[in-house]
């Protein structure tokens, strides 16, 4: 068999014959560059900074594991860590609560679309504004919540001024938009539940909680996965609400790691960038456990396609 002449002939330029290989990299270049400079490199730089004593101006001083050893004995760090744990656990309530509201609203009565949008409303509002709204709600003397507790127990509770309750007060404020987010995820999920399976299960006599647990929830798995991901991330990112509602107080009892890191690194009493970086590294490692889990699952789904 004689060799066939190349269909494109020798005119084919180097670019033309390689463009399918090169194009993706040209398209990726700007994105990767920005992401490398502002996200990937800073992560490594923070790890490095955490081994130094540095006020942001004068030369850095190497202290080895010094910052981490100091963290171990830092009472405020332990409080922040404990509060992060409380946030993480209580924030998860957003998932079932969101599901509950989604089920409540998954009807086709007139005007239901407007109800759905208005229930979703809190998510659109900035956390700064949410924080101010709840600060008003909890305000001593005239706040709705204060009046409610006064009416119920005789004495009112100023939640945000009480070191035992303040963190819970902030978490409730955070749950408000988070529930709205989970709700919208589940509403979309419920919309796509296979109707024939529901009908079949109904003929078999399934209803209520049994139907929810055995028929509906398995179909809502993608929605649940995303709801859990965004809720975990949201809980560990909590900064805005703490900063706005209590600024870490009273007596530093509402600090969380993200807030404590900011406070240490950029406080009025002198910047401690190295120490702040060490706190950030701890928060990052906690988050990494979850991120690794999410990404692992996503890679598995991707491969399964």
């Amino acid at each position, binding site marked *: 068999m004689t060799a066939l002449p190349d269909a494109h002939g020798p005119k084919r330029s180097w670019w033309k014959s390689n463009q399918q290989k090169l194009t993706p990299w040209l398209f990726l270049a700007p994105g990767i560059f920005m992401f490398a400079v502002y996200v990937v490199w800073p992560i490594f730089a923070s790890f490095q900074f955490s081994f130094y004593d540095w006020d942001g101006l004068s030369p850095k001083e190497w202290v080895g594991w010094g910052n981490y050893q100091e963290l171990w004995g830092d009472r405020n760090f332990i409080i922040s860590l404990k509060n992060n744990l409380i946030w993480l656990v209580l924030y998860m309530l957003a998932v079932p609560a969101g599901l509950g509201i989604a089920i409540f609203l998954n009807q086709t009565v007139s005007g239901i679309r407007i109800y759905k949008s208005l*229930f979703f409303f809190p998510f659109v509002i900035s956390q700064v504004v949410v924080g101010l709204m709840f600060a008003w709600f909890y305000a001593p003397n005239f706040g709705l919540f204060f009046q409610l507790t006064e009416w119920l127990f005789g004495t009112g509770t100023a939640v945000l001024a009480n070191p035992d309750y303040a963190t819970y007060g902030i978490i409730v404020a955070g749950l408000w938009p988070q529930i709205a987010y989970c709700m919208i995820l589940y509403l979309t999920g419920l919309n796509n539940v296979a109707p024939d399976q529901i009908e079949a299960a109904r003929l078999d006599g399934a209803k209520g909680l049994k139907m929810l647990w055995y028929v509906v929830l398995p179909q809502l798995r993608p929605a649940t996965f995303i709801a859990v991901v965004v809720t975990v991330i949201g809980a560990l990112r909590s900064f805005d609400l703490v900063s706005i509602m209590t600024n870490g107080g009273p007596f530093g009892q509402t600090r969380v790691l993200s807030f404590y890191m900011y406070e240490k690194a950029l406080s009025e009493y002198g910047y401690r960038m190295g120490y702040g970086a060490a706190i950030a590294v701890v928060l990052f490692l906690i988050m990494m456990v979850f991120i690794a889990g999410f990404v692992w699952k996503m890679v598995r789904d991707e491969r399964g396609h």
Partner: protein
Amino acid sequence: MFPRPIAQRSRAAQLTYQALLPVALILWLLPLLGIAMTSIKPSSDLAAGNYFGLPTHIAIENYWTVLFDFDLWKYIRNSFIVTIPTVIGSVALSCLTGFALGIYRFKGNLLIFFMFVAGNFVPFQILMVPVRDLTLNLGMYNTPQALILFHIAFQTGFCTLFMRNFIAALPRELIEAARVEGVAEWRIFWFVVLPLMKPAIAALSVLIFTFIWNDFFWATVLTTSAETRPVTAGLSSLNGQWVAAWHLVSAGSIVAALPPVAMFFLMQKHFIAGLTLGAVK
């Protein structure tokens, strides 16, 4: 459909449901309604202890006070200056990255994709010290550019996830057909893929607009003055000045919340399509 449609139930159940809806909504939005009501109360009402009743007159002047006496309009302007270029930049970058990762099969594709995905989840604090330092070194500290560049870079992570999944779901035959015709790769992007991406671009734009408008952390880390601070950080510093002048705090909050709320109601379909991407398979 789950739960069983209310229309198949008794008349009493239907009426109960119809009555429950507005009650539940009012309870749900109580903090918002309270703030909205307070924002139109004259300060004399609050001084007289009228916290929950109707205002004696509608005090629109609260809004003028926060906007002009306290320069809230400047913070609003700053927010637009930061938000709009960020939306354009991150959506543009992710159209490119999404195209590369969604269309081409090459070594490292999944690795790069998951770098973007994972980066999108990291806590801001791990980036704070180096990004602030970099911004200072670039001479951009306390400028809108500082925020714009950082936000574009960070949002590219989320946007790439979104765009790549959207593009990967497009019919491949379209691209194959164009290739057979000998169309150059960049022309395939521009003339074949980009026009199909309009819904994704719209959804991402409204989402990123809201995310950036509502950003508070980076606004406080990278900007310091009233000339550059976005409205979230501005509201926080004004809140310090207004110590418990709740009619001003409320009016300021409402103003700061308005642009993303308007965006949401105008582009609701796109907004929800964007947020719930991946919630169904």
